């Protein structure tokens, strides 16, 4: 990379580029010296790269802003073009709803104001345009209040750029900025509080659930007010322009032209709760909330910083995560070396965990945050300066804090926490002070803490192997009881010495022999139909076939896949309908009862080969023996989740295909139309053949044109055909989804109705938690001085909480697929008379439909 680029990229960093100096002033001067010359040499390249740096390393915006301010003193024209590009990009971002660009560019413009590049009044106009759009949107008559997410987002953008230039605005245009702030306050009074229970990490106690709880916008407003009352002074945003103030005042302002905000869609014609909810959902998908604060550390542990500084550091961290995703080293290094004068490792841990647990979903897979946390644990060790070696301990503290609150943690978040934790430990030799938690063994089997430990161990074993994990918990050997069974299959027909050989043993051996002889699936099927089925009946036949074939494929994932590929039809023929497929699944689960992973994988593959339907899986999950385990193990939930996920993935694949083919159809249409036009033009031309005027160009060319018309026409037709085929597949998939969702919600509704207390006794989930204090606090053993449990929750109550928790989690996760089927679901499931109100409450909160 050329020198000037490296200087721009690395400005403000300690490293070879800037020698020993860590002073921002030196950096800016050095960089300025090089860049001013470079502009003359290759001016066109400088500005796009500079903008790219500012957009993708937003924590350095003040440095880039100051640099541009200095350039403005010498090369107004260059800076004018930069301002124009920023503005053009900003408008594009507004038009396309690109949240990150809108937010960062507005911050960048604010910073350019500090270095006297942008006219303050014209920035105020931008703020006011955004604000007025926001106010209109939430207006009942003129706007569309269900699109409040966009309005909130615009206001958040204004507020979140004030830390970068509040002081300058207050100094240069005090009345105008005051007017903006008053406008924001007015906006806050007409918008609705959006703290919705459907996206909270924790199930809240009643005291916390009061309507006065502040949502993100209100909270940011409070922080901004306290910043304003502190004279706009804060620690987290460097102000390098101050060192150059004497020069910068000579700069010539550039004006921003007016901008145009995106208009929200018109409100739904009928004001049903569902339609409003649907629009609200769409708006939230478009303008998702970046962070939900996770206050897990006690106040005395966290860094003592101003409220606004906390916000700014969160912004820095989230932006590094966003823009440096995929650049491992840089990401960890920027996270650990933010330009702030205080320590922030607790804040960093809270921010990272808030992303892992974020609902409905974080911007990236858990895997990414896992990697970042691992790297930070290592960086922390290497770069004592930034994070004095404490990050691993802070992470451990976060785990302990979350563990304490695990019974209130949302089920989806909890699952992600388990996946993260097991994966994290697998990268650090599975070292964890398990003895701290060995007391969970004294808790009932359904106690959330106990289930958490059990599920973490389960995942650890999957990532490693049983003996290794057993070894890792030797300090808390009692926890061995929570280890999964050793992974061996439960094969019924093993031929052990001295054990009786039944007829089934012989059938199994025979079947085994046929596989080894590579008999075709068809031959095997007719043998089964002729010899086993008539004599032994369906159940024995199924048992023998499932046990034997799974045993043959038991050696590895690939072995299983191969058996299913080769002999899957045997299952298919034997179990053509849902009823029989449910029995098939029970058999699979019996064979792999000691291995949760293989059970899940086998069922997943069988669904993949369409040997079992997704509906059969739902029915199996809700079969009585599984229902009883809902609160004691994640296993069946994992399987249900896989089935939903697979269904959803296939639909997404089809949609992607369709959108690609549609694009190709357009291209083909154009090509074919062009070819036809060319042919027609040629046909209408007169040309001379052997001295005679003839209609049409020379025969060679005509022939070529005709063949092109034919070819392009055929291509178009064949694309259209494949589009139709895909669309038919998608329609089928969508109607299957509808049936699946109906079954899923009916099943949840039925099991919940059976076990939830009467509606009159349980108006909210919190009622469940409090009720048990009397009923089941007794069954706790209090020996050995283990930490005493206050009031452990009862069997049935925990069952209800877990099941409702998963209902919420699945509904929220697949909200996008659920909305199109809402009418039908409402008609057939949600509006039934005997539907439990808590069931509906869970669904509505997951879908963010307002409750009456």
């Amino acid at each position, binding site marked *: 990379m050329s020198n000037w680029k490296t200087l721009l990229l690395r400005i403000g960093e300690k490293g070879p580029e800037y020698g020993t100096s860590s002073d921002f002033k030196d950096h800016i001067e050095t960089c300025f010296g090089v860049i001013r010359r470079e502009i003359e040499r290759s001016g066109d390249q400088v500005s796009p790269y500079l903008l*790219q740096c500012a957009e993708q390393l937003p924590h350095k915006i003040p440095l880039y802003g100051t640099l541009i301010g200095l350039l403005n003193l010498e090369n107004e024209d260059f800076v004018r073009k930069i301002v124009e590009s920023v503005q053009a990009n900003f408008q594009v971002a507004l038009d396309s709803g690109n949240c990150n660009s809108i937010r960062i560019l507005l911050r960048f413009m604010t910073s350019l104001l500090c270095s006297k590049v942008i006219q303050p009044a014209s920035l105020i106009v931008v703020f006011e345009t955004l604000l007025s759009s926001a106010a209109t949107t939430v207006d009942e008559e003129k706007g569309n209040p269900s699109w409040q997410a966009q309005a909130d987002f615009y206001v958040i953008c204004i507020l979140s750029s004030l830390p970068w230039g509040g002081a300058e605005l207050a100094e240069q245009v005090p009345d105008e900025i005051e007017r903006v702030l008053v406008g924001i306050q007015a906006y806050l009074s007409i918008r609705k509080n959006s703290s919705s229970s459907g996206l909270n990490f924790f199930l809240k106690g009643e005291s916390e659930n009061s309507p006065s709880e502040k949502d993100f916008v209100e909270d940011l407003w409070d922080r901004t007010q306290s910043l304003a009352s502190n004279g706009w002074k804060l620690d987290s945003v460097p102000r390098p322009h101050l060192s150059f103030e004497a020069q910068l005042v000579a700069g010539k302002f550039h004006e921003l032209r007016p901008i145009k905000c995106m208009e929200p869609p018109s409100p739904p014609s009928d004001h049903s709760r569902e339609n409003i909810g649907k629009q609200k959902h769409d708006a939230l998908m478009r303008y998702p909330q970046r962070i939900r604060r996770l206050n897990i550390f006690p106040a005395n542990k966290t860094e003592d910083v101003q409220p606004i500084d906390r916000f700014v550091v969160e912004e820095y961290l989230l932006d590094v995560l966003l823009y440096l995703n995929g*650049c491992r080293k840089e990401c960890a290094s920027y996270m650990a070396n933010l330009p702030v004068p205080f320590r922030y490792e607790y804040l960093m841990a809270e921010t990272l965990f808030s992303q892992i647990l974020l609902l409905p979903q974080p911007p990236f897979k858990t895997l990414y945050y896992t990697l970042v946390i691992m790297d930070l644990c*290592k960086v922390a060790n290497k770069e004592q300066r930034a994070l004095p*070696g404490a990050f691993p301990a802070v992470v451990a503290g976060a785990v302990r804090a979350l563990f304490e609150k695990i019974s209130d943690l949302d089920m989806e978040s909890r699952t992600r926490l388990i996946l993260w934790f097991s994966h994290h430990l697998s990268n650090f030799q599975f*070292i964890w002070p398990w003895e701290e938690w060995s007391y969970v063994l004294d808790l009932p089997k359904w106690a959330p803490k106990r289930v958490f430990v059990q599920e973490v161990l389960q995942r650890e074993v999957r990532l490693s192997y049983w003996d290794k994990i057993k070894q890792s918990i030797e300090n808390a050997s009692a926890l061995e009881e929570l280890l999964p069974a050793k992974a061996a299959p439960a*094969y019924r027909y*093993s*031929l052990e010495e001295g054990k009786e050989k039944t007829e089934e043993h012989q059938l199994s051996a025979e079947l085994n022999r046929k596989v080894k002889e590579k008999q075709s699936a068809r031959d095997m099927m007719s043998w089964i139909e002729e010899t086993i089925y008539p004599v032994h009946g369906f159940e024995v036949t199924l048992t023998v076939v499932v046990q034997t074939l799974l045993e043959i*494929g038991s*050696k590895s994932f690939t072995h299983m896949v191969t058996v299913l590929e080769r002999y899957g039809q045997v299952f298919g023929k034997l179990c053509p309908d849902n009823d029989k497929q449910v029995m098939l699944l029970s058999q699979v689960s019996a064979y792999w009862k000691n291995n949760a992973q293989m059970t899940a994988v086998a069922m997943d593959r069988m669904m993949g080969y369409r040997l079992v339907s997704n509906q059969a899986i739902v029915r199996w999950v809700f079969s009585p023996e599984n229902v009883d385990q809902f609160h004691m193990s994640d296993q069946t939930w994992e399987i249900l989740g896989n089935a939903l996920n697979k269904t959803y993935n296939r639909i997404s694949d089809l949609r992607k295909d369709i959108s690609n083919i549609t694009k190709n159809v357009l291209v083909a249409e154009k090509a074919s139309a062009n070819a036809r036009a060319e042919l027609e033009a040629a046909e209408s031309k007169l040309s001379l053949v052997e001295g005679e005027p003839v209609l049409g160009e020379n025969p060679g060319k005509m022939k070529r044109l005709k063949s092109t018309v034919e070819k392009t026409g055929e291509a178009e037709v064949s694309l259209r055909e494949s589009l139709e085929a895909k669309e038919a597949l998608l329609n089928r998939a969508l109607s299957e989804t509808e049936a699946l969702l109906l079954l899923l919600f009916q099943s949840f509704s039925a099991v919940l109705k059976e076990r939830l207390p009467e509606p009159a006794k349980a108006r909210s989930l919190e009622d469940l938690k409090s009720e048990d204090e009397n009923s089941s606090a007794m069954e706790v053993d209090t020996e050995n001085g283990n930490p005493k449990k206050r009031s452990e929750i009862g069997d049935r109550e925990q069952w209800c909480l877990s099941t409702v928790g998963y209902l919420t989690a699945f509904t929220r996760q697949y909200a996008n697929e659920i909305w199109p089927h809402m009418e039908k679901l409402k008609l057939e499931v949600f509006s039934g008379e005997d539907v439990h109100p808590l069931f509906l409450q869970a669904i509505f909160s997951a879908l963010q439909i307002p409750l009456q």
Partner: protein
Amino acid sequence: MASLFKEQAKLSAYRDRRFSGTQEEFEEALRTSSTVYIGNVSFYTTEEQIYELFSRAGEIKKIIMGLDKNTKTPCGFCFVLFYSREDTEDAVKYVSGTILDDRPIRVDFDWGFQEGRQWGRGRSGGQVRDEYRTDYDPDILSVVILFCLDGGYGKLVQKELEAQRQLVDYGTGSLGGSYPAPAPSNYERRGGPRGGGGYGQGGSNRHGRGGDFHRKRQRDDDRYGRDNSRRNSDHETRRDSDHDMRPEKNPRFRESGDSDDDGEDDRKRS
């Protein structure tokens, strides 16, 4: 998405000699492929472990273990096929350089699995590709530990990676699919070149998972048998033991000639 640092990153440091097209076609294949090549895998790592780890990146279509072409045992690499390109990219971005079974594995885009590529191409049957492990940032790969066990701050334990190797029979028992055509005795696990108690004696009933099982226990016994204090034990690094066991297989000697020859062999075979 970060593009500032991307230009420095290569799609893959490795150019497979068996790829028949041009460099451009090779890069295009890497850009669109939904297959990853995973290297530096422990010889003991099972498909199920790979499945558990990589399914966190996305839905897995297929796993193909790389096998020593002589012993038909896993020899430290494998392919994972995903359904979606996005998941493939995430696997490369987020799993490469992390630990699986005590080893930092590397994950690269692969131009696409073809029959024959499951065999190690080293002269001795193992994998040649091992040599380019060094272009990783050693800081990222070094394993530094972790949590203060006593609740105090900053007490970090650093520990070297360790692993021992013992060959494990794998391939002869595998079913067809992407593996070689199965012989009739397909599902029987044959005795392999490893010694040790109980292995391969599972008989007809427990040849499958039972095998893994013994294998794992045996490995564990070997590792911890002499020294129960895990945290203090001083183990050889795995790479060293690789070389100790098969000194003739130093991959660095084979960069140019051998792999091509081996490629020829493989083509003839298939």
